[in-house]
């Protein structure tokens, strides 16, 4: 049985851990609100954009001679996986779930004899993919100094991806991120951005005139669409990260509380046992006289 001072110091240390996790939970919940607001604010743009793109894409069709970003290169031999994770840990399964999804996809592609290239956004994803797919890692985008993701960041990532596409470095690009469902539910998601896929079931409604031509607009908008999708993913990721951290820290706080209760009971018992012991010694000493 551990002695009293050991128990005492353990209780103190668990208590300070609980304070930290509690503080992290509160910080995460404040950040979550901001991230959710940002995701909310970005939604109208993305929705409009996607519905316009879907209309355009379905009317231009995937015929020969269409823009390469829409029709693809005609092959799917080399695939680029853009894995978007957080810069920090301590957020439950958030990072590992995204990485797991990407890893499964990469392994599957490799067994099919395809070539995989990986671009990571966020330090955590890079760290966990480095060992297994070290040769496949192309580039890394660091967002560690970023307090709030902006469209600029998404544009930069999109430019990186697009210039590689123009240099024929890959045929298909997919992004991996976590979609924000709720605080306790974040869904790791795979989304193909190049060649672009749009929900063709969308009802276009109006028949538009186009200025310049449909093809001209499409060529202008497709690169932007990549940026928009990446931006949406970044926003979802930011909200998911905070949500995951919040619930992870909530759990940790609760566990610490249970631990403290357990240790306190143990502490009290051993203290009582020690007192009883001393009393017995005194009494038996007195009797012996």
């Amino acid at each position, binding site marked *: 049985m551990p002695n009293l001072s050991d128990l005492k110091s353990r209780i103190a240390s668990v208590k300070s851990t609980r304070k930290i996790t509690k503080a992290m939970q509160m910080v995460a919940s404040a950040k979550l609100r901001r991230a959710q607001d*940002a995701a909310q*604010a*970005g939604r*109208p*743009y*993305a929705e*409009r*954009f996607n519905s*316009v793109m879907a209309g*355009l894409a379905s009317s231009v069709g995937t015929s020969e001679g269409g823009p390469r970003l829409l029709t693809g290169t005609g092959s799917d031999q080399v695939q680029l996986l853009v894995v978007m994770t957080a810069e920090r840990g301590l957020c439950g399964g958030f990072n590992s779930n995204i990485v797991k999804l990407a890893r499964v996809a990469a392994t599957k592609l490799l067994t099919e004899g395809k070539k995989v290239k990986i671009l990571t956004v966020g330090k955590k994803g890079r760290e966990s993919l480095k060992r297994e797919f070290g040769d496949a890692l192309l580039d890394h985008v660091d967002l560690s100094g970023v307090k709030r993701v*902006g*469209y600029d960041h*998404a544009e930069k990532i999109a430019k990186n991806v697009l*210039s590689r596409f123009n240099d024929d470095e890959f045929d298909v690009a997919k992004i991996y991120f976590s979609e924000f469902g709720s605080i306790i539910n974040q869904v790791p998601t795979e989304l193909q951005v190049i060649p672009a896929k749009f929900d063709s079931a969308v009802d276009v409604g*109006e*028949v*538009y*005139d*186009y*200025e*310049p031509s449909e093809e*001209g*607009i499409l060529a*202008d*908008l497709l690169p*932007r669409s990549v*940026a*928009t999708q990446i*931006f949406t993913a970044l926003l979802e990721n930011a909200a998911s990260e905070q949500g995951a951290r919040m619930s992870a820290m909530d759990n940790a706080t609760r566990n610490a509380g249970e631990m403290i209760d357990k240790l306190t009971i143990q502490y009290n018992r051993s203290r009582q046992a020690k007192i009883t012991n001393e009393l017995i010694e005194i009494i038996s000493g007195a009797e012996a006289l």
Partner: protein
Amino acid sequence: MADEMNFDLVSPEKSIASFMAKEVQLPGSEGDMTAMPNHAPILTTLRPGILSVSGVDGTTEYVVTGGFAEVKPDGVTVLAARATNKSSFTQEDMDSLVGDVKALLDLSDETTKDSVNKTYADALALAGTLGLSVV
């Protein structure tokens, strides 16, 4: 006939403006156009320029750096990469716009060169209108 329509100005990060408008002047990439209620549906890309909206309480002007606009009989939606109120558009914004276009110019190949050159000219024209200098 309705004499007002919805006007929405949306950037990727947030919705910038949303109100009823009487007419909207758009800096279309192939020329300015004015959209009024019951305009035929049209989709146009935008060049860097000034977007002017006449609403119930006066005219508001925005500087947009590109994007596209969706005109419908009952409203206009402008999806702009960047949009700023004209009065708060600074020299710094202008510099970053020109810098972006110049970067595009370096990347462009034969097929896209003309359109990027045109965007560059549009950006210069915008600077002239706003009385800002170009580095």
